[in-house]
């Protein structure tokens, strides 16, 4: 079982998201995250999908996705050069003065912006790879009392010359 990535070009139509997510649930495929958004062509949406599967199931998933009339193209991002980022918001509450200083330092070191704060709370906005976001969350959850996390799921695009995933 390995982590895989797919980029899907689909019709920007009613029910397409339900069709794709329904395919995963109906066939008991393991879907980890799915993001979808419009593209430069308003009739096309792109989905970035993270899943865990063995090789055979993964081949089958790609074929099943290709079979959907609404799917225009399936691109396997598992082993290709891509840029991939995920938006992460972390709100840290019940902070002491020392906590606030520490959070501003963490922000500087991790390349995270602090987009909002008051005397006892901080809102961090982080656009990083998924693994860096994981690391940040684990650091914050061990050092601070109350954190609230919202993650957007990764989006990815093919690289031009360098790779970041």
């Amino acid at each position, binding site marked *: 079982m390995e982590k895989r990535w797919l980029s899907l070009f689909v019709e920007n139509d009613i029910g397409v998201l339900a*069709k794709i997510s329904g395919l995963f649930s109906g066939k008991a495929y393991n879907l980890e995250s799915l993001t979808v958004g419009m593209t430069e062509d308003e009739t096309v949406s792109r989905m970035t999908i993270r899943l865990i599967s063995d090789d055979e199931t993964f081949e089958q998933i790609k074929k099943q996705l290709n079979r959907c009339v609404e799917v225009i193209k399936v691109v396997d991002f598992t082993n290709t050069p891509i840029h991939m980022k995920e938006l992460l918001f972390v709100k840290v509450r019940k902070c002491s003065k020392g906590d606030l200083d520490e959070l501003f330092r963490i922000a500087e070191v991790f390349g995270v912006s602090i987009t909002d704060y008051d005397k006892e709370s901080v809102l961090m906005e982080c656009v990083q790879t998924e693994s860096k976001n994981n690391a940040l969350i684990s650091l914050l959850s061990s050092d601070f009392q109350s954190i609230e996390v919202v993650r957007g799921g990764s989006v990815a695009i093919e690289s031009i010359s360098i790779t970041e995933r």
Partner: protein
Amino acid sequence: MEQIRGTSLLVKALQEEGVDTIFGYPGGLVTDIFDELYHHDDIKVVLPRHEQALVHEADGYARSTGKVGVCLVTGGPGAANMVTGIATAYYDSVPLVCLSGQVASSLIGDDAFQEADIVGITRNICKHGVIVNDRKNLGRILKEAFYIARTGKPGPVLVDLPKNVMVELGSDEYPDKVNIRGYKPSTKVHIGQLKKAVDLLNTSQKPIFLIGGGVNIAGAQAELTKLVELTKIPVVTTMMGKGSIDTKHPYYLGNVGMHGNYAANMAVTECDLLFSIGTRFSDRVTSKISEFARNAKIVHIDIDSAAISKNIKVDIPIVADAKEAITAMLNYVNEHETTEWLQQLLSWQAAHPLTMQSNNGLTAKKVIDHINETCQDAIVVTDVGQHQMWTIQFLELNSNMQLLTSGGMGTMGYGFPAALGAKLGNEDKTVICISGDGGMQMNIQELATAVAEELPVIICLFNNSSLGMVRQVQTLFFEKNYSSICTRRRKSCPRKCSGTSEQCPPYSPDFVALAKAYGAEGIRVTTEGEIASAFQQALENTHAPTIIEFIIDKDDLVLPMVQGGKPLYEMILEH
């Protein structure tokens, strides 16, 4: 450009697609469409008595004619009743366009009367489903629906029609071309791959062709027969592939799978090359996967790339239409020296021929033998259960005979309505429905449709007072705990029945009386000697269906049988 209503454009679409028969059940959300149809004499509208049966009728019509079957129902319950029919057609790759009425766009989401999200409900059981949200898309969507249904691996397409869209004025244009960027079915065969497969064939000592329903759907029976005669390689079929070659052909061994015959299952087990065309390797065919064709290289030709290496890992995959692939193969194959292999197969065949457990009195085999002796040009449609397996085991098929059956879904209640659809599409052919007392009652109301349409379908109803296939499983694997399978059971019966006796309640319903109540004919046959005269009487009844109820022994089993999870070569041969 003339402005016409959505209903008029729908009728125009049907005409341009060459549809002369549709299966429709009216209701509040499709009254405008039925009003439009009322004014068109060139489209016959058949009125079934239930929407599930309606879809099976369109399915039988489509399978037997090769045309797209068209269904028209109202929203809510009408649409929801189609679900089993759609799933059945999807599994067996039957081209259907299913049109459902929907509440007006402005009411969708309000829990309006008879509102049901039928596109959502059927999303995983149809090839494609779409709601027409704008009158200007209606023509394109209908065109695409017919195209998607009949091309590639065929299947049902659902089009949901909101009431307001169908009465709205708009363009009268019905497109003549389709361009769907996400759907480009390819039928062309990759010659390089095909040559590799033929090379394997040439070096094999014990090759076998495994043929599935794809060959029948592609209409490649003649090409397959030529291929077999050219190569002298023996053939086995799946249930859906039966009839792809004359069942009396010397190289035909029979069906493989759970109730396949001994020689066919052993052939697959012992072959060194399994050359499969148009099959998806269902679990009913393979049984225990690790032991399936354990010594063989496998070639797999299928039109659906997702069918390849889904269940069985194959050595040479080829995505292609069966007819194109076989036609291309004819250019490259040679005659094989298969005498020794054939002798082995024939000795297996002789050691364990297909037979019934009991030869006493009236049996299903004797009825099917009568059909074999008297029908050379008929469509036989089965329901689901023991009678289905006996038919698939014993029915002889030549190129003028056709067998329709619910293979993938195994839908009880399929047989009778599908037979009516087949008769509507083939008025000059004899259509025989083979059913059981369980399946027949799942759509028995269609006797009214058959009488109304004057369809002289012959229904061979095997009545063993039980849900026989489940009873067989209970006999073999559940210590004869006959749980919920007796169709004679009444409230007064003991909770645990030790078996039928003289004290058992009478069977209900009386099928002969019931047939007559509908205006059909009913004949009860209890002895072997009455078979021929009952068929004769049924054939003389040319304007209404005839039920011939054959009273058979409930202890007769379908054998061989491979228990689920066991290897194909571990067959129960007698009990």
